[in-house]
Structures are given as C-alpha cells and as structure tokens.
C-alpha cells in the first residue's frame, strides 16, 4: 500500500501544496521518518500483512473443520495453525491495530499538536515491532509452535517439541513496542494539548487511547517477565512454573492473564473510541452523556486489571477467589453497558445517514453487544464450568475481538481514509464490504455458540459427526468473511491510486483533525485549529432544516 502512496506519478497535476505524503518519496524518507502520520502508515502496512497471514491460518483451519475426520492436514499441523492464528492476530494485529495506526495518526491532530511528544521513540517502536514480527516469521519457517497462543505450562516448557522459545521471544520483543507506543501517547496527551483544550473537551477517542496506553504500559512488562521465566524454564529446566520442582503451573496462568485480560481492553477500548467518533458524526448529534462515557472508559480500564481470574474458574484456583473474580467480571459489564446505552441514545432523534463508516460502526455496536452479553454467561461460575472449554468461548471472544475490534478498526479506516490519503473510496463498494463482513462474520461465529452449548470442545482437530452441519455452516460463513476482508483491500488500494480527491472535511465532522487539509501538511496544521466550546458540537435540528 505504501508504494502506491509514495508513487509520484499517481499524484495528479493539481497537487500544489506540499503535504506529509509528498514531503519525500524515497523509501529512505519513509524508513527514517519521525512524522507520526508516516509511522502510522508503516504500522498499517505491517499489520495488514500480519492480518492476512493470521487470516490464512484461520482459513486453513475452517477448511479442515468442514469434515469431522482429517481432511487436509494432520492434528499437529492443526495445533500449529491455531497457535499461529492466535499469536499473530492478538499481538501482531489486534493490539497494535487501532492504537498504532489510527491512534498514531490522529492523537496529535485531535489535540492540535504537531507530532507526538517523543517522535524518535515512536519510530523506534515500529522497528522493535518489526523485529518481533521477524521472530514470529522465523518461528513459522522453523515449523511453527503448537502450544496455543496462551503458552500454558507445563506443555510449553516440558512437552512441546516445537520452537517455543523463538515464538515467545517474538512476543517479548513486540511488548517493548507496545510500551513505547503507550508511553508516547500518555506523554503526548498530558503535555501537547492545544491551549484551551481541557480534558473534558477531548474527543472520546483520545480518552480511549489514553486509557489503553495506561494498560499497555502497566500490563505489558508483566507479560514480558512472565515469558522470560517461561523461556528460562524451558531452556534450563528449572523455574517457578514446574510442579515437579516445587513450582506452580497455575502461577503461570495467573501471570499470563494478568496481562492478557487487560489486553482484551487494549483491543476493545480504542474500538469504543472509534465508534464514538463515527456515530456522533453520522447521527449529527453530540455524544449522549459525554462525561459518563469518559468515566466508563476509565472504569473499564481500571476494573479490567482485576478480573483475570475468570479465565481460570476451571483451572483449580480457590473457589473464594473465583467468587470475587466472577463478581468483578459482572461489575465490568456496567461501564460496558453504559457505553452501548449511550451510543444508542446518541442515535435517538439523530439525523442519521448510513455511509460506510457508520455501517461498520453500527455493526461494531451490535456485535460487541452480543459478545458482551455472552460474556456474562461465562462470568457465572456454574455456566462457565460447562462452557469454558467449548466453542462457546471461541464464539464469545471472536464477537468481541473480531466483531468488535476489527469492525471498529474498519469503521475508523473508512472514516479517516479521506484525511489519511486525501482521496475518496467508492461508497457503494465500501457499503457492500461492510454488509458482507457483517453477514459473513455472523454466519461464521453464531453457529459456534450453538456448537459450544451442544458441547463441542474447542481446539479439537476431529469432532463428533453430529456437529458437522454447524461446522459446515461456520466454514461457509468464513469464506464469505474472507471475501469481505479482501474487498476493502482491493477498493481501498484502488482509491489510494485513483480515487477522487477528498475535501478537507467530507463528512462535516467536528474534530480538530478535520480543520486541516486532506492529506495534512507535515506539521499537521497550517494555522492553529479553533478549539470548540464542547466536543461533538453537532446540531441535528440545523442539519434537518438545511435539508442535508
């Protein structure tokens, strides 16, 4: 994608003013840039590649699962595929997805700054990310690993015959890129807000990325150290997770989920931020309950640190601990529900239009709702005992991570595409893409809820014949979903090359980033942006009267 953007022949003649894309065309100018907008694009290209790698693994798994007996691969290969799918999608797509691309591009612009506070560390974070990616690719070339993305001990330390240490090293290295990104956003939001832009005038996207950054900075080091201990145990044969040596394998799960549950909020909080921007714009209304929304973000981030034990209800942890974790998991539902209610209330009496970003964002709200409600089933101890090792869990977290985060990521990409590239995409193709993804997604994952309730265990290579119909349905949905994901790749690439020129503010949106040119100049604003009296200063009545 970047090569098409930097290709000078693609720029039309009317291009007169310099912008961040025309500021230098050489590959070197991209690889040494400290411009947050270019770093965002470097990330975008990298994670897009990883997205399709992880997607390819999922495709092969869905093909295999068409049949209850072995079809195209061995059980070992299947284990390696779901591990590769999980590791790549979680650490190399979802975690950096919205923060490192849209966050990097937009945070400085939304607060009226020229760049992030620490631009060189920003660039370094991309190189560290790429280095971590190299480890993972090396792992794949060496044959992949078969532990699942959770690297549970003692399998990962004692029994697995695959290159666990190399894969773990990739995740470890990538963690530092997360920390650098999070650190940068925290400092940027604290220090570089334009004069007069107080905390409660910030767009909710900034709040969401800020809360995400705090989780990134505080949770990621825990994972890093846990993985070091894991690798040492595997290499030296001694460690605190080995029960035969007096250690405790459950301790690994505690440490792992202390990071990995907050990581779910790393993935979903930015998605909530995007939805707030897009829904207000296409409902032409200020967000309902702005302060409640901001506090809900903070509450989700805070409580997110205290619920990790709900991944371990059936792992043998103390029942009393489980009771507390179960209660706290229900508590997280409150701020999450507040967000859904407030988006709905924002739509109420709005002047709603259904442009592609809005379709993606509404898809996000609906799928997040289903993912969240099924999460309540799993938060209850009795239900979880039956469901936690079934496809119900797989469906639940895919509704949050794919239905939630990936839909919102696409909503954001479409919403800010004109700002990022200076070009429009085909609206009808984009709407078609949104609908195909929504339909394909539900067809893939809704049957998995039923499979889970009927008792099909997750991560199994073969299954009982009575599950075949729903599995075939799920695989059929996956093929639609795959087509849905290829569509944006095609029409967005076409748009980057040949799309119509975008105006500065094609959606009539109110954020500061829309006050500058599309694509923005190198230092973001030619003239300092006007700071509005309140965020989301939309007026639906005026819009109606103007006959929009």
């Amino acid at each position, binding site marked *: 994608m970047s090569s098409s953007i930097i290709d000078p022949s693609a720029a039309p003649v009317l291009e007169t003013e310099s912008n961040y894309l025309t500021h230098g065309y050489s590959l070197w100018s991209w690889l040494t840039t400290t411009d947050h907008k270019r770093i965002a694009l470097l990330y975008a290209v990298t994670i897009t590649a990883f997205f399709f790698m992880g997607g390819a693994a999922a495709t092969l798994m869905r093909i295999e699962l068409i049949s209850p007996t072995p079809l195209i691969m061995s059980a070992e290969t299947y284990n390696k595929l779901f591990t590769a799918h999980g590791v790549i999608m979680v650490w190399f797509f979802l975690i950096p997805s919205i923060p490192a691309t849209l966050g990097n591009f937009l945070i400085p612009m939304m607060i009226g700054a020229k760049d992030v506070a620490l631009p060189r560390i920003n660039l370094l974070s991309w190189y560290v990310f790429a280095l971590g990616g190299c480890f993972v690719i090396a792992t794949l070339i060496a044959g992949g690993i078969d532990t699942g993305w959770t690297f549970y001990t003692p399998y990962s330390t004692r029994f697995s015959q695959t290159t666990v240490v190399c894969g773990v090293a990739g995740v470890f290295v990538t963690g530092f890129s997360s920390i650098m990104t*999070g650190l940068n956003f925290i400092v940027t939001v604290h*220090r570089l807000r334009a004069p007069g832009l107080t905390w409660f005038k910030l767009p909710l996207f900034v709040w969401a990325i800020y809360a995400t950054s705090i989780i990134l900075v505080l949770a990621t080091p*825990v994972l890093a*150290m846990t993985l070091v201990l894991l690798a040492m145990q595997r290499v030296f044969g001694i460690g605190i997770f080995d029960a035969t*040596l*007096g250690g*405790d394998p459950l301790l690994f799960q505690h*440490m792992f989920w202390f990071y990995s549950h907050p990581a779910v909020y790393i993935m979903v909080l930015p998605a909530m931020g995007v939805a707030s921007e897009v829904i207000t714009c296409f409902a032409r209304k200020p967000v309902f309950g702005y302060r409640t929304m901001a506090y809900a973000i903070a509450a989700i981030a805070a409580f997110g640190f205290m619920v990790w034990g709900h991944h371990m209800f059936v792992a043998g942890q103390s029942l009393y601990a489980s009771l507390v974790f179960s209660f706290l998991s229900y508590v997280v539902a409150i701020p999450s529900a507040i967000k859904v209610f407030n988006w709905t209330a924002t739509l109420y009496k709005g002047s709603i239009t259904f442009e592609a970003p809005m379709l993606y964002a509404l898809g996000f709200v609906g799928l997040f709702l289903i993912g969240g409600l099924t999460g309540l089933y799993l938060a209850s101890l009795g239900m979880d005992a039956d469901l936690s090792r079934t496809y119900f869990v797989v469906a639940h977290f895919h509704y949050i991570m794919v239905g939630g985060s990936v839909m919102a990521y696409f909503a954001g990409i479409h919403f800010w595409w004109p700002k990022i590239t200076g070009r429009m995409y085909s609206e009808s193709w984009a709407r078609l893409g949104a609908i195909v993804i929504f339909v394909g997604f539900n067809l893939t994952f809704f049957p998995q809820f039923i499979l889970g309730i009927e008792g099909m265990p997750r991560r199994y290579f073969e299954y009982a014949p009575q599950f075949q119909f729903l599995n075939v349905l799920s695989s059929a949905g996956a093929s639609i979903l795959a087509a849905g994901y290829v569509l944006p790749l095609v029409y967005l690439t076409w748009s980057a090359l040949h799309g119509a020129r975008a105006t500065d503010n094609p959606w009539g949106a109110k954020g500061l980033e829309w006050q500058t040119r599309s694509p923005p100049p190198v230092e973001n604003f030619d003239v300092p942006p006007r700071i509005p009296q309140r965020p989301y200063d939309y007026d639906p009545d005026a819009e109606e009267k103007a006959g929009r």
Partner: protein
Amino acid sequence: MSASAEAATRRANDSDSEVGLWVFLASEVMFFGLLFYGYTIMRLSHPQAFAQASAHTDVLLGSINCCLLFTSSLTMALAARGLRIGACRASLRLLAATWVLGFLFLAVKCYEYHEDIDHHLVPWGRFAFHGSLAAGERLFFFLYFVMTGAHAMHLIVGLGIIAVMLVGVARGKYTEDNCEAVELAALYWALVDTVWIFLYPILYLVHRP
C-alpha cells in the same frame, strides 16, 4: 523561531522527557513487581527451604554492595543538584564517584557470582543441596539469579547513561541551563537503587529472625 521561543520549546520538550521517564519507571515497577510476586508465592510454599537457602548467600558481600549502591545514590542526587545550582566541577566529580561506586557494586557482584558457582549454588547443573528441601532451595537460587541478574542489567545500562552524562558535563554540553538529562539519569539511578533496597532483605536476610 526566535531564540526565546526556541528555548521555551526546548524546556517544554525536556518536561516531556520527564513525564515519559516517570511512565517508564511505572512500567519498570510492574516488570520487577512480577518477580517479587513470583518470589512471594514461592516463599509462601517453601518457607523453610527459602530460609535455609538464604543462609548460603554471602551476607557480607551483599551488605558491602548496599553501602556502595546507597552511597552512589547520594552522590548521584548531589551531582544532579550540583549541576542545577551551577557547580559544574563538583557535579562532574560526583558523577565520576557514582560511576565508580556503581562499577564497584558490579565487581563485587561478579565476585559473588563466582563464589556462588564455586559453591554449586547455581540451580541448573550440579546443585549443592540434596535434602528434602532441595526443590525449594533450587527455586530460591533460581529467583536469586534471575532477580539479581535483572537488577545488574539495569545497573549496567545505568553505568552507560552515567558515562554519557560524564562526557556531556565535561564538555560543557550539560550545564545549569540544560541539566534535565542529568536529573533524569538520577531518577533512573534511583530506580536501580530502590530495587536493590527490596532485593537485599528478601535474598540475604531471610534466615535472620
């Protein structure tokens, strides 16, 4: 951009670094925090073994290292303060003293590791203990090496940073008008020091009631 505006921008950037460093330190606390958490759980499951194993650490060398590192913390703080009030030469000497004290800490630590290896206290390979508590003692020394090792790595990075500060102050790059870098180095050095304050009692003093 006028000179004063440029100075103002630079000051603003310096403070960015300060906020950034505090965030980084928070992240470091979580990094070490996990090790302390693992230590706590393991010590709760093997209280006797941890007490016995701890008796085999060299408390004299550990205590000497405390003196070295805490003194270096004082000299580092004074170096930063000295630069701020314009005492560049004193600051230079104090920085040099900090570097030497930190280096001595590392030298003592290396000697201690050498002794540990001689006494077969390294948990992988031939291990000194064989009794019923050997499993817990192994875990103690595993954590001992991981925790002091992680600390030593931070100390080595700190020595590198102080060396850069030394050269900067000597060449007049860092002066009373531009002393933030030295102050941030001092902040980082305080982390190295603080971690050791917690490591010393939990590794060397377990067996002493």
